[in-house]
């Protein structure tokens, strides 16, 4: 019977190298594979034998798009190992830094990577010819996020001030004042971006995802909270590995994760939003509802609107943090190495990022384990391809190809991140 295989080699407008393979038989999609062939860089192996103080700078190099996320998960996991409680002022500054990364990363994805799909262009640069104002607004938003990172971290990519226990240097309030000025503009631009993306046309694709994200008693989650799902999971990061298993698959250079007893799950903006809607700043909540989102979102194409809502929230949050900023009494807590294990999960722009470190008594890293969001989302992305691509099988192949690329791009995969964690899982 009619059977065909569709391959999309070299996915574009994603970070890193991947491809899609669909197998179709009798007009039905039988299998869908997201193939990741980015060369692995062995971070977990090269962290062994390094000093614990080096982990934030080394793991930042896993991803140039979300280095702050790696630094945050690393310092929180190491502080867990060393039983360090950082004061609220340091937590606030970390949150501000993370706001910068969310704004930067989301604005990049919305403007240059994702929006061209909805408006029918091959790139943000091509889109700029007819949508110049929107592209310039998106780039300026991205720049506002970068300005936060540079002010706190010294530079936009791989910032240099984050350390276990706090910061190498904390800013003077007068350094943050110009940021506030810029963020007031950014908040308006973000609001405009929510309206702009909310007016795009979305295919009617809904499915019942298992969502997984952090949840905190008061805040929309960045650095802190328990890991929860919409299926009743509610655990601290310390038992993450007991509930989530990763396994190698033949077609990918990244491991796939599954939630034991549930299977594939999704982490990232859709999950964060759906599990934490009521924790959003009021301005972000209102904008979301006005843009046609409910308090949950299960249409992956609408993730572009959710990202815009998160940018708006991050601008509001950053303004509030800057408004009440006081220089912390100490830039960093004293750290005393000891033999211990520590774990932490934080919310990278693309979703939950888990780190674990086993330390020797002198602070040498004996073992590192890192589970990035894109590896966790692989199975869910393949499920999206299986569920939704059938709709476009009867149309032109070019349309099908574009839609499949979009199905992957919806989740903003960071393939560079996902690949570097091939780990030893012995098949007994």
């Amino acid at each position, binding site marked *: 019977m009619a059977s065909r295989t569709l391959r999309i080699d070299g996915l*574009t407008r994603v970070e890193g190298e991947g491809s899609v393979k669909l197998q179709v038989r009798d007009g039905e999609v039988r299998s869908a594979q997201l193939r990741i062939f980015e060369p692995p860089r062995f971070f977990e192996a090269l962290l062994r034998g390094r000093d614990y103080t080096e982990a934030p700078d080394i793991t930042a190099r896993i991803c140039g798009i979300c280095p702050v996320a790696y630094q945050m998960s690393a310092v929180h996991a190491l502080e867990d190992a060393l039983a360090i409680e950082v004061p609220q002022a340091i937590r606030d500054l970390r949150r501000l830094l993370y706001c910068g990364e969310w704004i930067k990363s989301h604005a990049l994805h919305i403007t240059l990577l994702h929006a061209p799909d909805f408006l029918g262009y091959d790139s943000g640069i091509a889109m700029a010819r007819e949508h110049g104002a929107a592209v310039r607004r998106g780039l300026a938003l991205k720049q506002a996020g970068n300005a936060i990172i540079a002010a706190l971290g010294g530079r936009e990519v791989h910032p240099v001030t984050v350390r276990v226990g706090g910061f190498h240097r904390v800013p003077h309030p007068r350094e943050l004042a110009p940021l506030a000025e810029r963020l007031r503009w950014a908040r308006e631009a973000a609001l405009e971006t929510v309206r702009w993306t909310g007016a795009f046309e979305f295919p009617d694709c809904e499915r019942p995802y298992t969502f997984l994200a952090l949840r905190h008693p008061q805040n929309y989650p960045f650095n802190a909270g328990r890991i929860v799902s919409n299926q009743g999971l509610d655990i601290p990061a310390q038992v993450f590995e007991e509930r989530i298993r990763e396994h190698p698959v033949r077609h990918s250079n990244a491991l796939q994760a599954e939630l034991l007893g549930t299977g594939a799950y999704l982490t990232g903006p859709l999950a964060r939003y759906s599990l934490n809607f009521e924790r959003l700043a009021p301005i972000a909540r209102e904008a979301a509802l006005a843009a046609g989102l409910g308090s949950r979102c299960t249409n992956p194409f609408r993730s572009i609107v959710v990202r815009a809502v998160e940018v708006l929230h991050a601008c509001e949050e950053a303004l509030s943090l800057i408004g009440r900023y006081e220089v912390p009494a100490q830039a960093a807590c004293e750290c005393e190495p000891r033999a211990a294990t520590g774990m932490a999960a934080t919310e990278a722009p693309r979703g939950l990022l888990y780190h674990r470190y086993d330390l020797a008594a002198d602070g040498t890293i004996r073992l590192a384990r890192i589970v990035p969001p894109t590896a966790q989302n692989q199975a869910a992305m393949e499920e999206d391809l299986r569920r939704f691509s059938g709709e476009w099988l009867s149309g032109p192949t070019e349309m099908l190809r574009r839609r499949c690329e979009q199905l992957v791009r919806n989740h903003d995969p960071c393939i560079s991140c996902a690949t570097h964690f091939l780990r030893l899982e012995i098949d007994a």
Partner: protein
Amino acid sequence: MYPAPRKTRLAVWKFASCDGCQLSLLDCEDALLELAEVLEFAYFPEALSRPVRGRYALSLVEGSISTPKDAERIRAVRRRSDHLVTLGACATAGGIQALRNFAAAGEFVAAVYAHPQYIATLEHSSAISAHVPVDFELRGCPVNKLQLLEVISAFLRGRRPAIPAYSLCIECKSRAHTCVLVATRQACLGPVTQAGCGAICPGCHRGCYGCFGPQETPNTTALSDALAALGVSRAALQRLYRTFNADAPAFRRESERHGE
């Protein structure tokens, strides 16, 4: 009426890397759309679909060579490029992933793979210049975006990029930072590291960790002696030279003098 001159074709290639250096190009927010006026972004898969095939006037290459397939691919890139510039520590010195070059053969692969047969990887991560001729190497982990704009402008005008090869100390002094090595006795690679980042680490009260790689003719021996006198252990000295530019010859040689 004459037809508008054809724009210069630019290509951006990625090998083993974190994407941070090509992101620095997108981080040139203000200049990006202006660049698009004079350059055709002909191949840049991270930012655009539908590559333009053919020859490229300037290829920017990010990442190191770590698989047999990539070793072939970089040769094809070179054949199609009038000029080839490497971006950052991975492309210029093999990157942090070049730490595998110091491990016993097979150690990293064995430590990480469940099914090594699924993946082809080389024992070494190497610089682009180990495989093909390179016209200019831009340093940094990540590169400085202003230096990146200078390199692109220089190639557009057919001149050499004005990128200083002196040490970070020059940059640090010109910014009037207090010397962290002298005043706070912290280990600092500034005296042997190429300038370019803006001396941001000393500016944040910490020692330079060498992400721009060795300066021209660095005196690493003298620096190691000074650091040892401050009480930096042999193991710590080795780690200091072995980070993002571990396989740059001057840092590799110096690191081999230390260790447990």
